């Protein structure tokens, strides 16, 4: 297990370096002169030159990259072009609302997805299965922004039960989490169903029956524990979907989080913030997948004992 974990962590290093290069190159890939971008469209040629020197943009690209990495490791993500504040402050402010939104969405997705998946697999080809899978494929096909708008219309505007947007109290979490988690719940449900059905075909399930165990014990004990192994891995992959989806859902619900900051920054062409956010999102995704890999190791004795 230790060996496995160390290998996973070490395996991340080349990916981290790759990401940092991509993100660093981001500003350089934008058509036009980066110094001009920073200085603004109406700056004089001299001002642009000053900015170029101040930011080290006149130096060779590899050297710029090293400087960028040095700053990064010291927690310096640059200055926002729009507000002139350190980017790290902007992000820190917005981090927690996004974190909790992701957390509640995932919790809802797991609860709904696992339940539907298990019921569908055990009631194969019965009405429970058909309705479960109909819900799931619908959830998979719903545009989240539309689902969010319809939910606002129904629960906030028509019924007046919940806030339409923003973050004021815990009730503010309900609609956005529901919207963001629905698509993932659908994926989890479908995946759980097929994983569980595969497991139920295994020889050791037959062994369980031959021992005289009741079906409930076989499904919830023997089968589910095995089926969870691939489900956990897949849920980690879905987290990327969650982070991407949060941009959309935060826009719909005027959520004070990272996703909306990203969209706002794009409309203001605030490239340092965009750059930092892309880096942050991918780091988060990698971290989640590392955690998932470790959970996977714990579920799978073959790895745990390796």
């Amino acid at each position, binding site marked *: 297990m230790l060996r496995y974990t160390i290998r996973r962590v070490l395996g991340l290093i080349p990916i981290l370096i790759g990401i940092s290069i991509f993100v660093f190159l981001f500003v350089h890939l934008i058509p036009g002169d980066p110094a001009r971008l920073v200085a603004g469209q109406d700056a004089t040629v001299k001002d642009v030159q000053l900015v170029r020197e101040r930011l080290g943009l006149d130096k060779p690209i590899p050297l710029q990259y090293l400087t960028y990495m040095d700053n990064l490791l010291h927690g310096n993500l640059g200055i926002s072009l729009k507000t002139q504040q350190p980017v790290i402050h902007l992000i820190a402010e917005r981090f927690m609302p996004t974190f909790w939104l992701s957390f509640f969405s995932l919790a809802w997705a797991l609860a709904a997805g696992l339940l539907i998946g298990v019921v569908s697999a055990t009631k194969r080809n019965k009405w429970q299965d058909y309705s479960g899978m109909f819900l799931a494929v619908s959830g998979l*096909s719903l545009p989240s*922004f539309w689902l969010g708008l319809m939910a606002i219309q129904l629960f906030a505007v028509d019924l007046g039960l919940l806030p339409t947007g923003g973050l004021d109290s815990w009730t503010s979490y309900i609609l956005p989490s529901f919207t963001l988690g629905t698509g993932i719940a659908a994926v989890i449900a479908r995946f759980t169903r097929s994983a569980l059905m595969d497991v139920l075909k295994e020889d050791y399930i037959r062994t369980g029956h031959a021992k005289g165990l009741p079906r409930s014990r076989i499904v919830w004990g023997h089968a589910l524990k095995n089926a969870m192994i691939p489900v956990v891995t897949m849920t980690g992959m879905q987290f990327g979907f969650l982070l991407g989806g949060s941009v959309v859902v935060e826009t719909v619900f005027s959520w004070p989080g990272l996703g909306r900051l990203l969209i706002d920054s794009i409309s203001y062409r605030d490239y340092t913030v965009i750059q930092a956010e892309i880096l942050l999102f991918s780091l988060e995704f990698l971290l989640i997948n590392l955690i998932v890999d470790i959970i996977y190791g714990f579920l799978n004795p073959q790895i745990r004992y390796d």
Partner: protein
Amino acid sequence: MATEKQIETMEWAGTSPLPARKSPFSRFMKKLIRQRLAFVSGIGIIGLIIIAIIGPSIIPYKITTVDYQYVLQGPSARHWLGTDPYGRDLFSRIIAGTRISLSVGFFSVLAGAAAGTFLGLLAGFYGKWVDSIIMRICDILFAFPGMILAIGIVAILGPGIMNVVIAVSIFNIPSFARIVRSSTLSARAALFVEAERSIGAKNRRLIWRHIFPETISTIIVYFTMRIGTAILAAASLSFLGLGAQPPSPEWGAMLSSGRDYLDTSPFVTLFPGLAIFFTVLVFNLFGDGLRDVLDPKIKD
């Protein structure tokens, strides 16, 4: 060479008549028709394609016709699905939008699939350093959540529907590369490919005549399943203002412009959303059916 022994061997094999000849294609069609839901959604897809092709020429109103007399009208006999804030006919705009969504979904997946398939075949067949390099690049691309990668790309290239196609195809590359690589690996290890190798077939023949056909059903299934996702992603980007720009009748963009009138005229957001939902749904259902027939091993 013909001896009596030959006749004897004949007899052992038993020349019992075989049942009617079944080609792989006829087996496939038979199974597909048995999947009723997939069959119906296949018809749905054909319907959508027809609408995409002839729709713009049969719609009752020009999609750009502004009519301030009929702003935000509810559904009526005159405007079946009502009108938008500029008094344009929603039904006509939604029909016209079909072509945009379908082509964005199709071409972005096609480009991603072509590149990903090529890379996946190379990585899976040659292994070693070719595999390492391709897969490490895919790992890095994978480390960016799909939508974030697309947003980043649009931020570089600027908003616009073409750039959305580029962004969505780039985030499709690594998923296709991975899935094709793994089915290449299993095909390469398949005994009949090994048998082919033992006869002395060259690599090119192995890849294109034996391994690629093995991966094709996986690619087709995955292709269909990804179209739905791609349409959703493109609509989301347009909704965020990064894709198609008004007055384009792109569904996501229409939805975005209607959201300010949500409380008074919900149909302006309702109908484009239903169009997206229905389109993505038929592709997902068809993909599910294809998967059950062609390659039950693929998971979402």
